[in-house]
């Protein structure tokens, strides 16, 4: 039986060697899955990332930008969509997602969106992150409400983190949520010449203090020890996973590392921005899609069995217009697609109520929104994050769950 003094002196029971843990708060951690929220900022063109090659109107709307269907003769095979289900295909730049899809861990939802019709980045993001019909009514975010609502004994300082400078709006209202640029930030900033004297001081002072502050101090010291052993530079992803270079890849890698370290992480938020492809879409998307595809694929491979307790959602505030513009790009639209990755997810499917791309089926030139983003998130909140009351998280919404989670096709 390990006591506090042993912990402070760095003695670990043999069984736990090689993976430091917080040992006197065994219940620290989420009741349900760890939730990773990836926000694809800028309005991702869902039509070109998950290509509806089976809809002939797609090619009518996008004579230049359209991605060739899997079997098209005479076209460059590398540039063809990769078949998913006989109607939709992956853009070749996100080919790495195929593995998770085929393993049944990745579900894609098409023609999904928010009620926001302004097509303004700011308005649409606010609406989506606040989790309401109208961005101006709430000041908390949906994740903030979720973390506040569930009865939780999880007091970990790493309960909710955002990688970046500021907390995203979705986390507004969450007590103790922190924005970190890097896990390396989680350390004592002691002058080098002090040789760790300050660390020794807080260890001594908090080690024998029997108040709630003392306990919190010891827990924080344990966490510091764990974090310092997480060397982000030498971390070796499992199963040969290779994260792409850049902030997104490194952010996902750090989140994976943090999940494995079992420090009580419950929610992690991360952005991949730049999807606003008004001009020269091929180049822009050509740069972003590999990051998305390789990043998510590496995360999935790295966590391996650990994915059973993780759900990751990649969403965007809106999609692009059905038809290409004259600058080889697309302008702001409405519906787009969403990626849902996790061991508990009903994957290997593209979930949709396909509205069609013929001119008379569009809504003011946009792919019609046939599924509300809250239907997917609400189901995840209830079935994966174990919050029995998703209506407190999304107060203005009547749910129609789509069966994106494996715990069954649930009626509302």
């Amino acid at each position: 039986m390990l006591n506090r003094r042993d912990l402070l002196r760095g003695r670990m029971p043999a069984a736990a060697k090689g993976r430091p843990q917080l040992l006197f708060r065994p219940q620290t951690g989420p009741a349900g899955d760890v939730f990773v929220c990836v926000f694809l900022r800028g309005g991702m063109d869902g039509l070109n990332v998950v290509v509806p090659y089976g809809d002939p109107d797609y090619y009518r709307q996008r004579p230049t930008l359209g991605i060739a269907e899997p079997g098209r003769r005479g076209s460059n095979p590398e540039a063809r969509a990769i078949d998913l289900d006989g109607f939709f295909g992956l853009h070749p730049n996100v080919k790495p997602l195929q593995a998770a899809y085929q393993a049944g861990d990745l579900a894609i939802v098409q023609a999904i969106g928010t009620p926001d019709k302004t097509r303004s980045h700011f308005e649409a993001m606010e609406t989506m992150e606040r989790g309401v019909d109208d961005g101006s009514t709430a000041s908390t975010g949906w994740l903030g409400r979720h973390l506040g609502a569930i009865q939780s004994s999880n007091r970990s300082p790493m309960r909710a983190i955002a990688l970046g400078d500021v907390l995203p709006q979705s986390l507004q209202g969450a007590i103790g949520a922190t924005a970190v640029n890097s896990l390396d930030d989680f350390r004592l900033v002691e002058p080098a010449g002090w040789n760790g004297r300050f660390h020794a001081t807080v260890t001594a002072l908090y080690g024998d203090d029997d108040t709630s502050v003392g306990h919190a101090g010891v827990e924080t010291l344990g966490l510091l020890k764990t974090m310092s052993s997480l060397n982000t530079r030498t971390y070796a992803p499992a199963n040969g996973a290779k994260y792409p270079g850049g902030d997104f890849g490194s952010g996902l890698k750090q989140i994976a590392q943090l999940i494995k370290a079992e420090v009580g992480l419950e929610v992690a938020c991360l952005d991949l921005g730049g999807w606003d492809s008004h001009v020269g879409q091929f180049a822009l998307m050509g740069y972003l899609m590999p990051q998305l595809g390789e990043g998510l694929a590496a995360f999935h491979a790295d966590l391996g069995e650990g994915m059973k307790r993780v759900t990751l959602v990649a969403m965007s505030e809106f999609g692009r217009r059905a038809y290409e513009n004259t600058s080889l790009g697309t302008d702001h639209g409405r519906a787009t697609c969403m990626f849902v990755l996790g061991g508990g997810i009903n994957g290997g499917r593209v979930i949709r109520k396909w509205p069609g791309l013929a001119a008379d089926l569009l809504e003011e030139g946009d792919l019609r929104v046939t599924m509300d983003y809250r239907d997917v998130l609400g189901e995840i909140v209830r079935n994966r994050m174990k919050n029995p009351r998703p209506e407190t998280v999304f107060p203005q919404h009547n749910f129609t769950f789509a069966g994106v989670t494996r715990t069954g096709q649930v009626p509302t």
Partner: protein
Amino acid sequence: MTSVINRRDLLRGTGAAAASGAVGIALSGCGSFTRLVTQPAIPERLDVQLAGSTDPVLRVLNRTAFGPRPGDVSRVRQQGIDAYLEEQLKPGRGIRHGPDWLPVTLPDAPAVDFRLRLLDTLRMSEGDLLDIPKKQVQDELQQASVIRAVYSRWQLREVMVEFWNDHFNISQTKGDSPFYKTAYDADAIRAHSLGRFRDLLGATARSPAMLYYLDNARSDKRVPNENYARELMELHTLGVDGGYSQDDVVQVAGCFTGWSIKDRLWRGRFEYRPQLHKEGDKRVLGKIVKGRTGEQGVREGEDVLDLLALHPSTAGYLSWKLCRRFVADEPPPALVARVAAEYTRSGGHITPTLRKLFASQEFRSGKGAKMKRPFDLVIASLRALNANTDGKGPLRHLGRMGQLPFQWAMPNGYPDVASAWSSSLLARWNFALALATGGIPGTSVDLRAIASATGVRDAVDGPGSDVSARRVVDAFSSVILGRRLEAGHARHLAGVVLAAKPGDRLPQVVAGILAAPEHQWR
């Protein structure tokens, strides 16, 4: 060629003032005066207080103020706790209103006034603020709250301003809120923080900030918006168990239809719009609120506020929150009852209510632990070390600790219980390190001056010994904590002093005391 030098450049030593050397000339002539107004001096001699248990004077300064400045404990002990509290309960002459919307702040300690003058947005109306970049408006108000808490001589008022800003919370994170919040802080909160609760309630209800934040500005007779009505009863007056029903919420929402914000001419100010008002009698908490038409319709909302301000549930709820702020996370029910009775007896006046609380045995006895929230910790540390600060650098640390002023998104304000703040310890430790080592931009502490005043300069500079190290520890625990550390902690820190290079002794011991568990409690 003389260039025009404006005051701000002169004070900051920037721009034309610096270029022309005017700063050097100006300051050399009145250098001591400038130092006098920017930085209150510490007494030449500071007694080293080594009481083990909590001194009642210390408790008063830790609870009704943001902690003692050097010399405060002796001064208040001499003055007497009752006399000190009476003085604090009637601060200066408070805030006076100039023409309609411009509050005129009467001079506080020069250190406050001097620093606040540099922040233009504090003096602007909502309408004018709408034209200023949002970030500047937000930042300056946050900066001002740090400056006032550190330097104001009216500490109880600053403590109450913080309390009411949480109670009537308006976050800067929602849309246009920052523009309204600056005026709200001055006109609604600061003006009435120690006055009649009904006046405070009325000022918040009419404030464009509240009308915007809780959506009442958009409420009209077709679909009265219930957000404000609900929070008014749940958070501002009766409390969630105060005995109101959903129907009351609907009726109250109806009373407040028409309370809105001007969008033309004097843009950003309160405006009552009779055409939006839902007419007819309303029934609230079992009483009839007579319906009025035209401009008189605004009186319905005022009637509701009258009803709520002196309701017994309001007396109980407010008293409970005040006892939680000043006495313990779980306030003793008997005390809450007595304080509530005083609230009612005084007609809902905050000052006598507080007087009753502070005179109570529960308050004076020293029982009841309260953890310092991050703002308490930062301000107490800056005060104890007589820091010279522009109020900006500490904000970064407050952000990391999770209590950046006015950034709490929900209407209920920052939590006031220890359990909410346990995840802020790492940020507190890093703040302690930064403050002690001069690592906070725009903020400095003169540790050697304190060492001189406490008579341990020789111990700091000279060769070390167990005795001299112990003297240094005692001196700085006295200054920072007002009392001695736990024996084991004091021993450990003495060892730190002994082992450190002379130049590191003071920063190391000060960082250690600021980070110590003892300092995390009020």
